[in-house]
């Protein structure tokens, strides 16, 4: 049972994006309902759990120490033909424990006045009627199942990669095959690679359109070993088998705790994800980074923009599609433009041949070695210029 039948805002999905929206709007004095279909928020985790965008993660202020597994001091990339990149940077990122992080975010939202309901699955969102939308919610399961209806001036769907609600109301947020990654994350006991580094394998034959990662979780003494690559016709074998094979090749002694999977949108931000009295946030709006597949930080940032825009809309009584375009614009200006660039870079990386890829890695290697400054490119003047020109001409 809900406390009320009428809400200012209903947020669907209590992931990082949804929680930020719910909390910020509740804090601004609006009546907010946050729905989560699962029994426990954050479980099961469908994520590699690393992030290098601390500023965006800390949209609420400092993250609770319990949720942080590791402080990351650099990235190590095993590139093609033995060209490896060592990108040392103190405190560049963190490893999260999403089983604790997501509930913590939801708890903060609840503390600030949002009503959080779990085992609540939004089944249907209606058309706008008298300035509100109807949301039909299925509560509980089995014998205790019931259906409730609420009305909300604004519906925010942060319902993840499958975004059924987004598709139901007519937004084109389906995952298209060549711009979607499929991934697995294998939790292995113990720390496999350098403990304060994120380690990647990229540009090898079996993962030419993605990468393999190894992220250490110090406090839990486990490693997230996973992989993501594009859904293309080329890969006949499923990604779990490929990743397992690679894991046992590198670490024959590896002891596996459990395996999770998922798909990741790598299309870069959707062109349109708002309607009258409706908006998408996070994976549903393809807010994930198209090169790295990371989405926690950008979802939280988008959640903040969404809350800000909806708050302004509620204040002036205008939640039309035209008005909510402001939210899309804020996201695009903050990270969308950069995501478009990274998307192009990702396609470029997969388009060029092996020797060009190796050359590009040499350029990046020198870039990292000489302190990641623009002038670092001058250490490999010929290769750099050639790559810049190729990339500039690349239209794909």
């Amino acid at each position, binding site marked *: 049972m809900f406390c009320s039948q009428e809400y200012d805002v209903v947020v669907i999905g209590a992931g990082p994006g949804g929680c930020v929206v719910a909390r910020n709007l509740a804090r601004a004095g609006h009546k907010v309902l946050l729905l989560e279909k699962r029994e426990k928020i954050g479980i099961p985790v469908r994520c590699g759990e690393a992030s290098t965008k601390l500023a965006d993660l800390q949209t609420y202020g400092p993250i609770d120490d319990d949720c942080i597994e590791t402080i990351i001091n650099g990235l190590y990339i095993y590139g093609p033909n033995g060209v490896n990149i060592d990108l040392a940077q103190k405190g560049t990122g963190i490893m999260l424990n999403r089983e604790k992080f997501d509930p913590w975010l939801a708890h903060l939202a609840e503390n600030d006045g949002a009503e959080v309901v779990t085992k609540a699955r939004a089944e249907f969102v209606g058309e706008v009627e008298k300035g509100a939308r109807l949301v039909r919610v299925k509560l509980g399961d089995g014998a205790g199942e019931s259906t409730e209806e609420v009305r909300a001036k604004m519906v925010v769907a942060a319902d993840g990669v*499958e975004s059924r609600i987004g598709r139901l109301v007519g937004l084109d947020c*389906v*995952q298209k095959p060549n711009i979607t990654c499929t991934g697995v994350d294998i939790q292995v006991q113990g720390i496999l690679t350098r403990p304060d580094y994120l380690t990647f394998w990229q540009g090898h034959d079996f993962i030419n359109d993605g990468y393999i990662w190894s992220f250490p979780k110090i406090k839990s003494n486990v490693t997230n070993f996973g992989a993501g690559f594009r*859904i*293309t016709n080329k890969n006949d074998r*499923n990604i779990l088998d490929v990743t397992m094979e690679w894991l046992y090749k590198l670490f024959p002694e590896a002891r596996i705790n459990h*395996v*999770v999977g*998922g*798909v990741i949108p790598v299309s870069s931000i959707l062109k349109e994800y708002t309607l009258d009295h409706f908006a998408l946030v996070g994976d549903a709006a393809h807010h994930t980074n198209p090169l790295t597949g990371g989405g926690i930080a950008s979802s939280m940032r988008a959640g903040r923009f969404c809350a800000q825009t909806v708050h302004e809309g509620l204040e002036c009584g205008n939640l039309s599609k035209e008005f909510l375009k402001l939210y899309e614009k804020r996201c695009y200006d903050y990270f969308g433009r950069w995501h478009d660039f990274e998307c192009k870079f990702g396609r470029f990386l997969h388009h060029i041949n092996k020797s060009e890829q190796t050359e590009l890695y040499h350029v990046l290697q020198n870039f990292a070695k000489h302190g990641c400054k623009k002038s670092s490119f001058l250490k490999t003047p010929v290769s750099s210029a050639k790559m810049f020109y190729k990339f500039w001409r690349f239209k794909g």
Partner: protein
Amino acid sequence: MKILVHDRGVCLECAGCVGVCPKMALDMYGLDLQIDLEKCVRCGLCTKACPAGALKLQEMNDVL
């Protein structure tokens, strides 16, 4: 005629297939995957998206 078959034993319950299905023929209820065979157009996208290979398009005769 082909039919979509789901192997619950290897399924990771990630709902990745739900996201790629162009016809919304798939849905995840808790840990159960439901396939609406009337909506399914046998495009095979979900079989490629599945990280564990839990979904397969098989000949109807082989299944029966």
